[in-house]
């Protein structure tokens, strides 16, 4: 909110500045105008104040020639997506993009799953139409995605206690849920892990939902600060929303154990909090769809009401198709039906109805036993490649590092990312000296690493860790 206030003031200030000078002087660049106090920034009053106090003759037509958006500041690049932009601009042949979490083959090429190509071919042959989907999205997709998440035999599904609405991948699904929280639980807080995916905070900020953090990452152990996590969840006001990463925590790659998940569920239940899962890597973390959904299923089995955002960006490689879902598990079918109607009411003024293509791909893959089997195999392959890369990186580091530092966290972490423990200065060194692109929090995407480049990366990490502070 502060930044928008600032631009409001500066927009008016600049408008007044341009109004009082000739167009030529304005175009020369920044203009200093005596004392521009806040009162002179009120819309409508600007011109007359400047006229009276500072300058004699003013041309009204000049005032109208000023841009309405003159005072708008250049926004900084997105910390995650901006990394790829910077990578593209780099001409060094050794450059390595470990920024955004998009899977790459060993040859470091983007990968479109074979099942996806098959599904798209089928869709084309069938000659399906392009009519608007209902606001809640493709029914076949919604059914498939809920069943994937909880298991088709899950009582929640059999009792119709789940509201599922197709969303714009993970981000869009989170945003719909955030909007629901803002409207129906005003003042309620969301607790985010420290650290968490960078965009989480933006989503809740823009939705108007207050948030705070719970301890998660322990830099000393490069593991989970479990006691801190439990304590912070306990300390939150009753009825808070606790954002949990279903598996493959982003950015750390550190997940609670099953026993720890039980204890987390205990304290959430005790405090009447609502568990809010972000599931972006189901099947991608361990290679098994069921295993990666076990945390969510644990909570559901305890009869708890839940919110779950899903994404098919990574596990089906459908990044750009923007396909995901928001699920709300309720204690009754009737509640689920009402909640679904309100999610629709939030989606309609945002984008009316979601895009059909990605939804059909998912529905086709999941709905066909042969394709579904092939998908599982491809997912195991992708998860397997990442595990191999982790091993090779670890081996390279241990071979090179004689300081006795324990790099085994690389093997213990799970999913696409590794939290290296490198600080901002060290991360900058990785980029500036070694042309290794990563996010400033020390996160690297192993999906963008090949076995062939592990040695080079190990050298870069070694240099940054030991020689830069």
């Amino acid at each position, binding site marked *: 909110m502060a930044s928008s206030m600032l631009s409001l003031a500066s927009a008016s200030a600049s408008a007044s500045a341009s109004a009082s000078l000739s167009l030529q002087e304005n175009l020369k660049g920044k203009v200093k105008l005596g004392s521009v106090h806040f009162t002179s920034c009120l*819309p409508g009053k600007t011109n007359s104040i400047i006229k009276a106090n500072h300058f004699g003759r003013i041309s009204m037509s000049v005032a109208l020639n000023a841009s309405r958006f003159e005072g708008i500041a250049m926004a900084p690049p997105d910390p995650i997506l901006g990394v790829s932009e910077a990578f593209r601009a780099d001409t060094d042949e050794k450059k390595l993009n470990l920024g955004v979490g998009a899977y790459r083959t060993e040859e470091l090429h983007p990968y479109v799953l074979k099942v996806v190509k098959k599904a798209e071919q089928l869709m084309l042959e069938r000659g399906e139409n392009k009519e608007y989907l209902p606001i809640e999205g493709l029914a076949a997709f919604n059914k498939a995605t809920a069943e994937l998440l909880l298991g088709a035999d899950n009582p929640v599904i059999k009792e119709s206690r789940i509201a599922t609405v197709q969303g714009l991948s993970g981000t869009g699904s989170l945003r719909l849920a955030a909007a629901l929280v803002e409207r129906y639980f005003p003042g309620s807080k969301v607790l985010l892990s420290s650290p968490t995916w960078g965009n989480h905070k933006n989503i809740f900020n823009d939705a108007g939902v207050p948030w705070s953090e719970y301890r998660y990452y322990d830099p000393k152990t490069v593991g989970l600060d479990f006691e801190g996590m439990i304590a912070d969840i306990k300390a939150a006001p009753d*009825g808070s929303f606790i954002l949990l990463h279903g598996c493959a925590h982003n950015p750390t790659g550190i997940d609670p154990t099953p026993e720890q998940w039980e204890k987390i569920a205990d304290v959430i239940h005790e405090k009447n909090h609502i568990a809010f899962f972000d599931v972006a890597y189901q099947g991608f973390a361990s290679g098994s769809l069921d295993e990666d959904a076990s945390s969510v299923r644990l909570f559901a089995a305890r009869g708890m009401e839940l919110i779950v955002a899903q994404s098919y960006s990574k596990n089906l490689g459908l990044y750009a198709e923007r396909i995901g879902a928001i699920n709300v598990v309720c204690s009754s079918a009737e509640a689920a039906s009402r909640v679904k109607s309100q999610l629709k009411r939030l989606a309609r*003024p945002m984008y009316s109805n979601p895009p059909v293509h990605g939804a059909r791909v998912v529905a086709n893959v999941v709905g066909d036993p042969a394709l579904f089997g092939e998908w599982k195999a491809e997912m195991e392959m992708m998860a397997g490649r990442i595990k191999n890369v982790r091993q090779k990186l670890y081996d390279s580091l241990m071979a090179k590092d004689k300081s006795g530092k324990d790099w085994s966290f690389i093997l213990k972490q799970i999913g696409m990312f590794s939290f290296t423990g490198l600080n901002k200065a060290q991360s900058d060194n990785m980029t500036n000296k070694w042309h290794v692109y990563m996010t400033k929090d020390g996160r690297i995407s192993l999906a963008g690493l090949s076995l062939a480049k592990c040695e080079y990366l190990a050298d870069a990490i070694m240099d940054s860790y030991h020689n830069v502070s």
Partner: protein
Amino acid sequence: MNKACSGQISARDVSERKEMNCGIHGVSFSSSATPSERRLSALARHLISPTESCSCSASGVSASITSSDVGSVFSHVARAPEDPILGVTVAYNKDSSPVKLNLGVGAYRTEEGKPLVLNVVRKAEQQLVNNRSRVKEYLPIVGLAEFNKLSAKLIFGVDSPCIRDNRVTTVQCLSGTGSLRVGGEFLTRHYHQRIIYIPVPTWGNHPKVFTLAGLSVKSYRYYDPITRGLDFKGLVEDLDSAPSGAIVLLHACAHNPTGVDPSIQQWEQIRQMIRSKGLLPFFDSAYQGFASGNLDKDAQSVRMFVADGGECIVAQSFAKNMGLYGERVGALSIVCKTADVAGKVESQLKLVIRPMYSNPPIHGASIVAAILRDRTLYDEWTIELKAMADRIISMRHQLFNALRDRDTPGDWSHIIKQIGMFTFTGLNVRQVSFMTREYHIYMTADGRISMAGLSSSTVSHLADAIHAAVTHVA
């Protein structure tokens, strides 16, 4: 300010709750009451009146129940009514009558009453799917670059000064709705005037989109029910009394729902007034090429506002003119004074988009880009587009003739004067209800019919229905 609440209550409370349509706005609450007093109070408030949105009681209503109870934290969430426009199709689908007619949502239908996927779209899609080097990597936040450039050229003209001067930023968004919402959010954050004027009537979703974006919605007169044409005098008066800098929503062509467009002379007057009052024009362009059959003609209003060197905003949709409804393809363009400003504006648009959905969907935009960039496909597209527009114009004439042949009372010439997909019939709510009940005609309650849903074989059924409604229902 309302406080947080867990909302969990006993099973008994829930069964009482089942009778109510819940919904109240936030009410502050004394924290000295006991938990059960607070629970009962919360229930009592929920009994007061059902409203659309709802919030829960103050904090402290802690549960003495386990999660296996029937109580839900969502108990206070009311059932939302069906969307009025999309709800028409829902109702239509439930009807089993063989003569039912869906004239609700504005999706084109063929003469056989079937949805249409354009041939060029199929061709482009085939190309995409067959292209082995195609990937599904995240698009940039602003979308597919080539699509953005081509969309801008389409609406502004290939030689447009704003493109030549590099002072327009175009970002891919989710069709028209998404473009309007992103534009609205941007204005709320960065524009000094938070009021937007929308015409009466307008597309039902407009006020919701802008309100949720954070703008304050006011209206200007537009439709004259007596002439069934433009209330130009009212429009001028209302915009004249708008505060300086206010945003004005303009339908670029084929006004939805009335089909009544200003003439070129009237557009010029509107432009002069908007510029002299320093108002900010925000165009909704959902029917370019679909209204007259000519892409340039349907973009004239927008281009007038660029030619004068001023700033404007344009939301573009490819839902209708490319038949890409479900793919959600559109673009938001902001024409600025300078390239420098356009660059900054674009960077701020990204901050609106990223926390909403990160980046837009690739499929539809790729299809549009493939068609717009290829001379052959582009030309084929214009032919298919004109064919759709011509069929609609033909339906207008057929309906007009059918009513004339039945001697249906009233002046029905507006049917052929209005332009675009919709006709604002002038039928009232009771007449519409009657037509649905007795003739299984589905349309929105404001009397709007989608001509795209009519065919030569169904025109007489509709004419019969209108005739009956007008003669039997006041």
